């Protein structure tokens, strides 16, 4: 369901310091959009917007590539972001600036169908005339084949996102003979695809919008295509790819814009991604206009510099991300709810905010739903003068006295606590802050940094007996369930497994039931559903299986020639909407 925060889980140590402060609204999403202004492009490349800003080569940089290009396999942000303009699903998320909690909109289909059969059946009407980059039209068969391929190619989310399609569970266990014959029914004459689900799913459209449900040609091989990108329908196609040096995207000659919000036509003629530059170097290179945009956040020590020298070239982009410390509810001392609450009370989130770049880019978190997520209601149970029963509107300051009292009641002071953290500057520092806090509370605390790639699964495996594990989580699509249900339901705790995303090992059937009800209500009444999710969030924090730390904003630096309304939630940036000033009209 969502990609974990170690977004660049790849080869580089994850900088848990991607966090950027939230606080103000700022230019982010407020630019007017004037795209799709012209469907009658003239001398331009076919499918390109008729605008003086069309054309040019966009130069992007990232410290490393995202590995496989297979959109149904890849599960890293860099590829997700890049392939948003290469592939389309039946649905998609709006590729325009706007609030964070927008749900999926139709993409390859004419409209979002109304649920039938109590939410278990959907009939999608495929758009006519949309072509893959080889010129072949997208047919209902391609859709059915792509759905089968999710299982056949072992997509990571096949189980959690798509196994409720009728026949999905069978496919999961026997991918080679996967037909989904009862679950996805293409109809060439009506040009429709009918989906049957085993149970209603309020997030079905969102899941279809995720990249793993990209629609690919039916003859795409049923295995990870690796460094070769399958054909797509978006405005660009991937022309060449060297995972250790770079990637080039060029226009898809068969692309014609069908919906300016779902898949707008692109401005640059060519997009080049260079891999291998670390963020510090990338900032310098962009300052010097050697690149236009970088994947990573601007490193903390450069933020002051770019803030003062290039404030007009900085974008702060809200992210639906939450950083937290998972507390193992099955191991002492955190098997005592009072200790978990005590740590929540005691941790100075002001320090956490400072570590992550200060209030401009980091927002202290008090609950496991990030600000802006569906179902989010402001409220902080663990700050001075607040309690789970009487939450304050926001976090103000730690309450060390209360925390010490709770610890004293629990009688656990003096116990040993080991904090496991990914080994990278930002998280190290926060782990150190938590260590100091635990020491103040009377524990014998120490920090154990672990290689980032391993840490994420290490803290999940109950065999490793991790007491406190630092990690973060960001949603694949905006939904409350992708935070609360994924991270804290009984179903996501799998003992002795590296894949047990519920690192707190929290399992409360009453809480599960509450979430199920919220999901059910959301099907028909989003508002009522969201209210229930908010209630679930409060219920969760009363049990405090984790210490929410903060939510960050992305600090993006642009070259002086880059502009445009390209920032959007989920994808963060839509490369097709990046416009390049010509040499003559540099500001």
């Amino acid at each position, binding site marked *: 369901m969502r990609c974990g925060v170690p977004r660049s889980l790849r080869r580089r140590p994850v900088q848990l310091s991607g966090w950027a402060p939230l606080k103000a609204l700022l230019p982010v999403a407020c630019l007017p959009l004037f795209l799709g202004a012209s469907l009658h492009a003239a001398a331009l490349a076919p499918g390109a917007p008729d605008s003086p800003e069309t054309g040019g080569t966009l130069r992007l940089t990232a410290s490393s590539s995202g590995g496989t290009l297979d959109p149904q396999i890849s599960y890293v942000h860099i590829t997700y972001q890049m392939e948003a303009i290469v592939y389309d699903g039946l649905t998609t998320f709006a590729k325009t600036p706007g609030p964070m909690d927008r749900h999926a909109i139709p993409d390859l289909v004419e409209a979002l169908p109304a649920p039938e059969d109590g939410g278990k059946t959907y009939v999608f009407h495929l758009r006519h005339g949309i072509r893959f980059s080889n010129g072949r039209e997208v047919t209902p068969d391609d859709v059915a084949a792509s759905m089968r391929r999710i299982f056949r190619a072992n997509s990571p989310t096949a189980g959690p996102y798509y196994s409720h399609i009728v026949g999905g569970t069978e496919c999961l266990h026997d991918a080679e003979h996967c037909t989904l014959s009862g679950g996805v029914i293409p109809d060439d004459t009506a040009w429709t695809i009918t989906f049957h689900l085993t149970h209603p799913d309020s997030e079905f459209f969102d899941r279809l919008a995720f990249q793993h449900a990209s629609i690919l040609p039916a003859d795409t091989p049923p295995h990870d295509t690796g460094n070769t990108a399958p054909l797509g329908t978006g405005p660009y196609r991937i022309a060449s790819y060297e995972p250790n040096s770079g990637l080039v995207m060029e226009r898809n000659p068969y692309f014609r814009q069908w919906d300016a919000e779902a898949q707008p036509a692109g401005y640059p003629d060519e997009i080049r991604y260079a891999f291998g530059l670390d963020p510090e170097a990338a900032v310098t290179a962009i300052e010097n206009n050697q690149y236009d945009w970088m994947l990573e956040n601007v490193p*903390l*020590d450069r933020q*002051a510099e*770019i*803030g003062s020298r290039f404030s007009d070239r*900085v974008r702060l982009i809200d992210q639906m991300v939450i950083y937290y410390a998972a507390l193992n509810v099955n191991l002492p001392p955190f098997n005592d709810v009072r200790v978990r609450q005590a740590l929540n009370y005691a941790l100075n989130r002001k320090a956490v905010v*400072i*570590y992550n770049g200060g*209030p401009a880019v980091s927002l202290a978190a008090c609950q496991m739903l990030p600000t802006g997520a569906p179902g989010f209601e402001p409220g902080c149970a663990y700050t001075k003068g607040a309690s789970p029963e009487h939450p304050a509107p926001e976090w103000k300051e730690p309450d060390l006295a209360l925390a010490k009292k709770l610890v004293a009641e629990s009688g656990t002071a003096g116990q040993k606590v080991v904090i496991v953290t990914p080994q990278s500057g930002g998280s190290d520092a926060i782990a150190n802050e938590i260590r100091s806090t635990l020491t103040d509370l009377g524990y014998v605390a120490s920090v154990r940094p672990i290689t980032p790639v391993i840490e994420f699964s290490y803290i999940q495996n109950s065999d490793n007996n991790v007491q406190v594990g630092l990690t973060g989580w960001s949603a694949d699509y905006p939904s409350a369930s992708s935070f609360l249900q994924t991270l804290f339901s009984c179903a996501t705790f799998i003992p002795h497994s590296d894949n047990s995303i519920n690192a707190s090992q929290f399992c409360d059937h009453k809480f599960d039931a509450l979430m199920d009800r919220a999901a059910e209500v959301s099907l028909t009444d989003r508002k009522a559903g969201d209210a229930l999710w908010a209630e679930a969030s409060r219920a969760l924090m009363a049990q405090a299986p984790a210490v929410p730390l903060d939510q960050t904003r992305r600090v993006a630096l642009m070259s002086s020639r880059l502009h445009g309304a390209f920032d959007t939630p989920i994808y963060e940036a839509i490369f097709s909407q990046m416009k390049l000033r010509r040499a003559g009209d540099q500001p």
Partner: protein
Amino acid sequence: MNGPVDTAPPGPWQTAFRALGGNRSAMMALAVLVLIVVLSLIAPFYAHDIAHTDPFRANVAGSFMLDGRAVDIMQANDNPLHLGMTPAGPTWRPSAYMLGSDSQGRDVAARLLYGGRISLLISFSAAVLCIVIASIVGILAGFFGGFVDMVLSRLMDIMWAVPVYLFAISLSIVTISDGLKIGPFTIEADNLLIPIAIIALVYMPYAARPIRGRVMALRNADFVMAARSLGVPRWRILLVDILPNVASSIVVLAPLMAALALLTESALSFLSIGVQTPTASWGTIIQDGEGLIYSRPMVAIAPGLAIVIVVVALNVLGDGLRDALDVRETSKRGT
């Protein structure tokens, strides 16, 4: 004359020490080293009584007094976007944040002193351990030859075939997440023994080879042959004839190995696979400073300079020793 130093008092050693004492630069290097060791030994005193700070405790939300007014340790910027928190810069006053603060609000000067303890401890211990292992391996291989030599030499071949730093990094990454488990004993990942052992191990072949060569030469030397033909037991030849004669080679290696160990330790810590938080070494401080190199370069520059000074001093001392003991250059270093 090339005789066993059997009964003779350490005549050659005395002359060597006298020669070393007469070497001005070597003596200066020694003085610098002693000074730095003393400085790092008084680290707790400095931190507690002069700077009044706990260099291991994060303190980002705090402030300190400078010229009678409170200064935030982490300072917000007044650029239009309020972007970036910058740690306090050097005050150049020993009373508080003389060299400024790092990104966790800790006093860099105090950390530098504490870091020196760890860096020096690791490099000196690693050098000693390395030389002990290397001497054992080198002497065994050189003295017994044959099968023992073959096994040990092949083992060293394997170690040689991997660039030192890659070797050290591999070992560090393997041990860093879960420590080292040897039978019933567990060495925690943050135990200093781990970097010490790793560094000692990777440089072992570098020290063992010259020792082995020296022992082999000695084994065939006249006086050893003579002792053998007289029926002196092998262990006695080893102890009485060989060991004292390789001792000078070994002694000369020590400061050079310590210099290499210091550089390696800092590199490992820089890649955050050496010394583990909250312990600080010069390498970890450079690593802390990496994120501040553009705004507060002093955090990375100060420990870097400290490393350079110590390594220069060790090298000068090593040169002096070599000249004094009249041993040809034998050592190598990594990149």
